[in-house]
């Protein structure tokens, strides 16, 4: 299930659950030329738009040799960026995990989807409007010497805004598909609320939750637009990995930029691999 797409059909059967298409009668089969043409067009489109950009990241990263690659990612600024990004991730993920049980009301779902529809730049801007020097809480924050914008808390808040829907979006269809029978049974057998939750609900959703958190991590580490508005680009202090990519790139340190970018790309690939594994496991348990 695509995470960012409001799922209209919550019960899409996982891959492998459907019968093999070759067993279908001829009425639903396309002529061979159409099959080849469509498959070719689809693969060419994907190769052109997806594979090529991915390949170029790694090719450029290694173009100046592995040593440079290592030097670039060991640079103290980059390390500080990684540490800060991981901090963001930990906090954002903790926030996300804590709120996994959503009653699926239609207005609420719309509101949860809101950050998807809002430009990341605007997500950053609204936090500047609330916490910035000119903002609602700005004077109070300055008086009490609390820094939010151009500091770590601002980055965490903006990232939380942007990644807000991910875990929820992953879990709502899953929990809807599973229904409430097992929870009812648990309650009937005398379990209290927390017991029901820990022993029945949580084991049922653990793979979806796991994937949601991984995806949330990937988005949090990669968030660029919102973070670039609230961070203030202070090197070694409020500089996440994507911002570091931008700085290196604008300094014409292309190989360095791609070295850091390839780390983020590896993270993206790992996310996709985990997603495939999770889907495969859900198919097997279904």
């Amino acid at each position, binding site marked *: 299930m695509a995470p960012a797409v409001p799922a209209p059909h919550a019960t899409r059967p996982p891959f492998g659950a459907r019968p093999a298409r070759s067993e279908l009668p001829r009425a639903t089969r396309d002529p061979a030329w159409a099959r080849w043409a469509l498959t070719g067009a*689809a693969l060419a489109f994907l190769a052109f738009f997806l594979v090529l950009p991915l390949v170029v990241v790694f090719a450029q990263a290694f173009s100046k040799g592995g040593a440079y690659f290592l030097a670039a990612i060991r640079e103290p600024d980059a390390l500080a960026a990684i540490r800060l990004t991981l901090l963001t991730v930990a906090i954002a993920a903790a926030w996300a995990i804590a709120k996994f049980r959503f009653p699926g009301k239609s207005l609420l779902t719309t509101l949860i989807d809101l950050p998807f529809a809002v430009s990341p730049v605007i997500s950053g801007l609204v936090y500047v409007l609330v916490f910035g020097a000119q903002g609602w809480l700005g004077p109070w924050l300055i008086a009490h010497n609390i820094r939010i914008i151009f500091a770590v808390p601002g980055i965490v808040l903006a990232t939380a805004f942007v990644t807000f829907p991910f875990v929820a979006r992953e879990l709502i269809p899953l929990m809807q598909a599973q229904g409430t029978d097992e929870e*009812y049974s648990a309650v009937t057998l005398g379990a209290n609320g927390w017991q029901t939750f820990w022993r029945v609900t949580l084991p049922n959703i653990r793979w979806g939750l796991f994937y949601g958190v991984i995806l949330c991590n990937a988005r949090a580490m990669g968030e660029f637009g919102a973070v670039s508005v609230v961070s203030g680009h202070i090197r070694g202090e409020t500089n996440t990995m994507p911002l570091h990519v931008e700085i290196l790139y604008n300094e014409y340190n292309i190989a360095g930029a791609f070295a850091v970018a390839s780390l983020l790309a590896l993270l993206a690939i790992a996310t996709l691999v985990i997603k495939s594994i999770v889907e495969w496991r859900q198919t097997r348990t279904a």
Partner: protein
Amino acid sequence: MTRARSSRSILPGFGLSLGFTLAYLGLIVLVPLSAAFLRTAGMSWHDFVAAVASPRVIAAYRLSFGASLAAGFVNMVFGLIVAWVLVRYSFPGKRIVDALVDLPFALPTAVAGIALTSLYSPNGWIGRWLAPLGIRVAFTWTGVFIALTFIGLPFVVRTVQPVLQELEPEIEEAASTLGANRRQTVIRILLPELLPSLLTGFALAFARALGEYGSVVFISGNMPMKTEIVPLLIITKLEQYDYRGATAIAVVMLVSSFVLLLLINLLQKWSRRFHTI
């Protein structure tokens, strides 16, 4: 299998979870968003119009909306083909291709931005071949369009794919037994069935493309009046400490996002009605 959690009264924890969700939603999402609207409410109408309708801003709207529409349209066509191929045909490596479709979700936008730029710049892998033909991609409208196509790619595929999977082959068989040829079956039976999800996917890709920043700023070249997208204009105004101007443009973009979101919800209601028949 689709069973809504209708009566939850026996299960405990409803008040707790709903209350927590609403509090979190309010603090993280709704209060900051309302700040943008309240800030703009303090501006006079004249200032507001001057901020959101200056020639430079209008050029940016034209670029953002035009390129997003074009990218959404290309994604609608190719997304349908990709979804069709993934659901109906089998070929070696299909699962890998299927996983790869989500790449634009997972890949940080800045990474996508520099990768696309180095592919299409005049000395890049693709740009090198286009340059002698007089075609410039990076730092032009085409570059913006390509970046927006990249980030919108998964939306149509992932909305059409589940609908296509749940479509029963019996419908097509019925059409066939009633004498329809394959072309008629596709145009009269399949396409109308897929239309709501196609439009939903298009609207999602369009909405995402409108707000996209990271993957576009590198490839667009950011020339005022020519290749400056709206989100970049907001950042430019912020860097000049023109908070009011930035907020006013942000409100225009927010309103268009809300309209799109409303449209997407209506489309999904429509498609759900289609499916319960």
